[in-house]
């Protein structure tokens, strides 16, 4: 219904909002970690919080979940002003994975379910089934300390999902996973969203946000630089035109915007507001002799640079390199 409403250009109603935050501020001593974050996560969608390391993503998620209180501002989680009241409907995978090393995989999953109100017996039953589904049946009764890092992460993810939450919050879920497991996780996120579950995750890897999210918030230096649909983010930039011509000069040059750049024989410029047809007509009429012409929609990375600035983009790149 929400999807249809958005496709029809209608704004989602309050009941369809899974998370809402207004002017969240968090100070740690003299340092302001989060500075006036406002965002709105529609129910049943995949929402990404994108930003470099230290931008305030984890602190924002912690405030949204009620793990820490904001210094000021308000938030609502699944319709509750006190986020912990909705704890049984929420699954949370923190950035720093935490499991009791002596617990078995099955007990760890069941315990995480029990924390969210799932009876321990039912949690054990579901844990056994979930581990079997993933071909990890041999690891059911092994202590966490004997598992590989990837397996322990899988166990923690299963613990996040064991109670069938309506809202899944994942803080940097892809960090530490190899490419295959990243792909598997992406599939799981899509499958949950398809089943109507709201998924919000933080990442500093633009590709994940671009592939998965319908809406994003770009956070830099504790502030939300952009919040909205991924297409809207891309829409903040004009499409990029790349052109090569046979005629080096002529009246067709008047059709190019003033900030058009030339690199060898290739001209690069933003598509003028009139769109491609007037541009093409002006080039043809001006005798450009078009050899190649491509119009590319800007990627999320370009949008990020435009929205958050070069400095934030550099931070994001270095965050990605650190993770890699």
């Amino acid at each position, binding site marked *: 219904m929400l999807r249809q409403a958005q496709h029809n250009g209608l704004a989602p109603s309050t009941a369809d909002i899974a998370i809402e935050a207004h002017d969240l501020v968090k100070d740690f001593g003299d340092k302001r970690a989060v500075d006036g974050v406002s965002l709105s996560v529609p129910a049943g969608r995949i929402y990404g919080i994108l930003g470099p390391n230290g931008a305030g993503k984890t602190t924002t998620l912690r405030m949204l979940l009620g793990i820490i209180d904001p210094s000021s501002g308000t938030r609502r989680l699944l319709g509750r002003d006190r986020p912990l009241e909705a*704890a049984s409907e929420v699954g949370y995978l923190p950035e720093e994975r935490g499991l009791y090393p002596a617990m078995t995989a099955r007990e760890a999953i069941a315990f995480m379910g029990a924390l969210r109100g799932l009876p321990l017996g039912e949690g054990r039953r579901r844990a056994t089934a979930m581990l079997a589904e993933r071909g990890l049946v041999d690891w059911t009764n092994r202590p966490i300390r004997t598992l590989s890092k990837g397996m322990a992460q899988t166990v923690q993810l299963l613990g996040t999902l064991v109670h069938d939450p309506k809202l899944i919050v994942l803080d940097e879920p892809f960090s530490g996973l190899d490419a295959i497991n990243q792909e598997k996780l992406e599939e799981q996120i899509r499958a949950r969203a398809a089943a109507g579950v709201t998924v919000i995750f933080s990442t500093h890897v633009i590709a994940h946000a671009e592939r998965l999210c319908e809406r994003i918030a770009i956070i830099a230096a504790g502030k939300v630089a952009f919040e909205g649909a991924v297409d809207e983010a891309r829409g903040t930039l004009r499409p990029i035109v790349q052109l090569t011509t046979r005629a080096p000069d002529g009246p067709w040059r008047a059709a190019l915007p003033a900030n058009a750049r030339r690199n060898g024989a290739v001209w690069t410029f933003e598509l003028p507001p009139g769109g491609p047809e007037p541009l093409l007509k002006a080039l043809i009429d001006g005798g450009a002799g078009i050899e190649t012409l491509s119009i590319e929609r800007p990627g999320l990375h370009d949008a990020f640079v435009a929205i958050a600035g070069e400095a934030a983009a550099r931070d994001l790149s270095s965050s990605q390199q650190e993770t890699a």
Partner: protein
Amino acid sequence: MNALPTIRAAFVIGRRDFTATVFSKAFLFFLLGPLFPIVIGLLFGGIGANIATQAERPRIAVIGYENDIRRLEGARARVAGILDGQPAIEFVYYQPAADESALRQRLLTGSRPAVVGVLTGGTFLPKFIGSLDPEGPTARQLRLIVGQAQVPPGLEGQPIAVTQVKRTAGRTSAARTLTAHAGQALLFLLTLLLAGMLLSQLIEEKSNKVIEVLAAAVPVDAIFLGKLFAMLAMSLLGIAVWASAAVAAVTFLADPGTLSALPAPALGWPGFVLMAIIYFAFGYLLIGAAFLGVGAQASTVREVQTLSMPITMSQVVIFAIAAAAASNPDGTAGIFAAVFPLSSPYAMLARAALDGRWWPHLLAIAWQALWLAVILRLAAAYFRRSVLKSGPKRPSWLSRLRKREPRPAAATARP
């Protein structure tokens, strides 16, 4: 804080902590813990006593005739019998020589045997030359032995006829004071041990990053209460095991009737044990809450040690006050120790051994419960603020004084 979900969540946390602790190797060591001081005490006590007997037994040279020697030796044997383990003087006898002065000099300076002094003049005109403190224990013992030896044979007098009764007020009072002190010491040691274990668990959880998983799912108050009560349950299990083992050991190893011969505390054994459990629970919860609240700030064992040191030292002082007041619970110090919340469990446990009235205990339990509620709430709030560095920074009193104008509602709203 909504009570029911918090209690349910505290139960989940507590159950995990309890089972994880009880089904671990560390718990076995915890159960065997009391054996170590007993064994070490016996071992080193025996060795120490032996060394002390060997090293400290004073040796005195006696220059005298056969008759004096016989009487001195008889008196020494009688005195040694009542010294109850204290080293008795050892006499080395020498016949009088022509040059007594030279013999005495040789004995005082020679090393075979090395003596602390020389006794001459027999029992009639005893004279001692040596390096003893005239008022010290050896000199006093020597006087007693010589005094005994001076009593002519047949004039020692009749020995006192002793008829033993089971109890006297004096003996019962002394035994009850001993019970009070022993109970306090046990309570103190257990409380400190458990509070330390509680902190170690918290630090382990912080280093495992489990704390964030917990804090995202349940109120931080529930984590606090769950941990606190899990450790209490674990300790009560330990106490039950120790008590059963002690009763079994006394029943099977000691003389029959040893248990019934123990003087009952003023409240009787069932009442005393009940009070001991209640006061242990209060004592532990009060100090454990303080430890947990302060310890939430620490992230390493070293930080824990630094932070818990002042609390431990304060607790030692509190215990010392309660212990000093134990024998006189109605004195000023006794009443102060009973009223001050942190020393109240110790003071009241001592009273349970010495005073048969119940109403002071009912009053004390209500008083301690009130303070427990206050301290739990304060410590839980501090824990909540510290454990994940949560909550707004509290302005200093100076800045609060300066900042008189009200802040906008939106800026202060905290869901």
